[in-house]
C-alpha cells in the first residue's frame, strides 16, 4: 500500500503536508537552516513585519506557566523591505510555502506592507496580524472589533491579489462574528488562533513576570480553547482554516483537523523541539494507515458531535 497523501490545498496554495510553522515561533525561517530541513515543512509563516524595523518590548519577555509560555516580545523585527531583500531569496532555496505575517499600526500601514510584497517573488500568501496582544497600537485593537477587522482586511484586499489569511484573536466572546467579518472583507483563509491574553505575577516582588505587564499565552495550556474556536469558526464560514494552539504531537494536530481545520500551525513546540515536524508527520501517517485512510483530507471536519442533552 502506498503511503497516505498528506498534501492539502489551502486557499489555492498547495502544501505538501498540513504542518506550517507559526508566526513568531520560527523567526524568518532561515534561522533553522542547517538545523532542520525546511523542505519537510508544508510551509512557514514569518515573524510579523511592519514597514520599518522595530525594537520590540523591554525584557523580561518570556515566562513559563503551567504547560504554557507567556510572551510579550512586542513584534521586534527587521521591517518588510529588509525581509524582502535579505530573507526571501534565501527561503526560495527551500521547497516550502512561505507566508508573510503582515502588521500595522494603522489600517494604512497594513495595506502598505502588503503592497510592498506584491512584486516580491516566493510569497505564497499573507497572514494578517490583527491579534497580537503585545503592542500598544494596532494588533489586538483591530482584532477585537468586527468593524475594524473588516476595515483592515478590506484595505489589504484592495492592494493585493495574494491569498489573505487574517489571524484571529481568541480574546473575543464570539469568534464566529470575526470569522464572518473577514470572509465578507475578502479573506481567503483564516488562522485560528493567536495567543490568549494572560498575566503572571512574581509574588515576592509583586511585579508582573513580564516587563510589558501582560502577555500572550501559548503552548499546550491553550489547546482546548483553540480547538473549540476552530470548530466554531469552521461552522461559521466556508474558508480554509489553519488550526493553531499548543500542537506538539500528531494527536494534537488531528484534533484541529477533525474540528475542521484544513491544516495546522506549529508554534511553541518549535522552541521545545526543532524535530517536532518529523514526529508529527510520522504520527499522522500512522494514524491514517491505522484508520484505513489514504488521504489526510478525509479527516478534515469529521467531528462526531453528540447530541447535547
Amino acid at each position, binding site marked *: 500500500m502506498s503511503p497516505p497523501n498528506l498534501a492539502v490545498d489551502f486557499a489555492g496554495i498547495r502544501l505538501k503536508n498540513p504542518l506550517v510553522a507559526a508566526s513568531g515561533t520560527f523567526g524568518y525561517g532561515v*534561522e533553522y537552516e542547517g538545523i532542520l530541513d525546511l523542505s519537510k515543512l508544508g510551509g512557514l509563516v514569518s515573524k510579523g513585519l511592519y514597514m520599518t524595523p522595530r525594537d520590540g518590548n523591554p*525584557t523580561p519577555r518570556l515566562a513559563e506557566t503551567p504547560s504554557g509560555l507567556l510572551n510579550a516580545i512586542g513584534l521586534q523585527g527587521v521591517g518588510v523591505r529588509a525581509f524582502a531583500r535579505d530573507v526571501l531569496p534565501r527561503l526560495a532555496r527551500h521547497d516550502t510555502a512561505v507566508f508573510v505575517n503582515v502588521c500595522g499600526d494603522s489600517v494604512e500601514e497594513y495595506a502598505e506592507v502588503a503592497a510592498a510584497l506584491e512584486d516580491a517573488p516566493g510569497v505564497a500568501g499573507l497572514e494578517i496580524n490583527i491579534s497580537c496582544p503585545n503592542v500598544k497600537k494596532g494588533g489586538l485593537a483591530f482584532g477585537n472589533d468586527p468593524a475594524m477587522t473588516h476595515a483592515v482586511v478590506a484595505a489589504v484586499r484592495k492592494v493585493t491579489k495574494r491569498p489573505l489569511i487574517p489571524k484571529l484573536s481568541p480574546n473575543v466572546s464570539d469568534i464566529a462574528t470575526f470569522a464572518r467579518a473577514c470572509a465578507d472583507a475578502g479573506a481567503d483563509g483564516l488562522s485560528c488562533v493567536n495567543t490568549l491574553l494572560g498575566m503572571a505575577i512574581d509574588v515576592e516582588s509583586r511585579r508582573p513576570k513580564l516587563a510589558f505587564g501582560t502577555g500572550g499565552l501559548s503552548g499546550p495550556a491553550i489547546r482546548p480553547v483553540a480547538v473549540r474556536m476552530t470548530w466554531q469558526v469552521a461552522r461559521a464560514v466556508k474558508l480554509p482554516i489553519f488550526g493553531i494552539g499548543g500542537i506538539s504531537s500528531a494527536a494534537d494536530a488531528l484534533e484541529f483537523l477533525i474540528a475542521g481545520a484544513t491544516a495546522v500551525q506549529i508554534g511553541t513546540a518549535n522552541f521545545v523541539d526543532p524535530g517536532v515536524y518529523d514526529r508529527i508527520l510520522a504520527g499522522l501517517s500512522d494514524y491514517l494507515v491505522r484508520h484505513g485512510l489514504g488521504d489526510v483530507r478525509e479527516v478534515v471536519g469529521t467531528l462526531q458531535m453528540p447530541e447535547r442533552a
Partner: protein
Amino acid sequence: MPTNRDVLLVERQALGGPYFVLSFGHPQVAREGRAGQFVMIKAGLSAEPPLRRPFSILAVDPERERFSLFVKAIGPGTRALCALEPGQPAQCLGPLGRPFTAPADDEEPLLVAGGYGIAPFLLMSRELRARGATARVFYGGRTAAELQLREPFAEAGVPLELATDDGSLGFHGRVTGALEAHLDRGGDGRRPRLYACGPDPMLHAVARLAQRRGLRAEVSLDPWMGCGVGTCLGCVVKIQAPEQERWKYRCACTEGPVFDAAHVLWPGEERSAAAEAGR
C-alpha cells in the same frame, strides 16, 4: 553547526548539595563544542516544564563522543535532568552561541566565575592549555558549599583562586575582590584579559572593574532563553558597540552569550539616554 538529536545520559556524578555533572553522548557537541558555547536540553517530551534549558558546555570528549554539563538542580527542568539515570534519553540541540575569544600571547587570561558560572571555564582552561597558555581561575560563591566544581580543575592541574562571601573558603569577600588583589600585585606581568561568567551583578562588577582599569573583558550572559537559535527573541540584551549611535537588542543565544563587557548596556547604566527616550 548545531545539531538537534536525542541523547542518552552516559554518566551522572553527584557533587555536593544540588550540584551534578551530567555526561551525554552527542558526537557534534563533543567535536565542535567550544568554551562559552551552550546546549539547549530537556529530559523527556512532557509539557512540564515546557521549554528546554540552556547550559554552558563543561567539557567535551571527542574520542568517546561525549560532552558534560554542570547542573544545579533548582527548578523543575534542572531537577528532571538531574533525575535521569544512565541510559535514559534527553533532547539536545547544540553546540550553540559564540564562544569566548582566545587571548593574545601577551595577555594573561583571568577567568572569573560566580557560582555555577564556573561551567565554561574548565573547557576554557583546557583550550588555553592546548595553546600553551595557563589559565588563572577565580571561583567565588556565597559559601564553600556553592563551590562544588573544584575537583575537575584539580584533576586538570588548573589552580583555582577561591572566594566566599562568608569567608568559609579562600578569599573572604567577593570574587572580584580576589581578582583585584591579583591585579594589584601586578598579575604575571602581562596585560590582563578578563573572562567572566556568573550572576548579572557580578558580571556588571567585572565590567566596571575592566573599564576602570582599561582592560579587555568578555562576559557570558544568561538571560531567560526560549529557543536557543534566535527565533523567539526572548533572550535579547541591549548591546551598543562604540561605533553605534544607539543600542540594539541582540539575541544572547546567537549573537552571544559571550559579549564584550564594554558593549553591554547594564541596567541603570544606559549610555544614550536621548536615543533611549526617542523610541
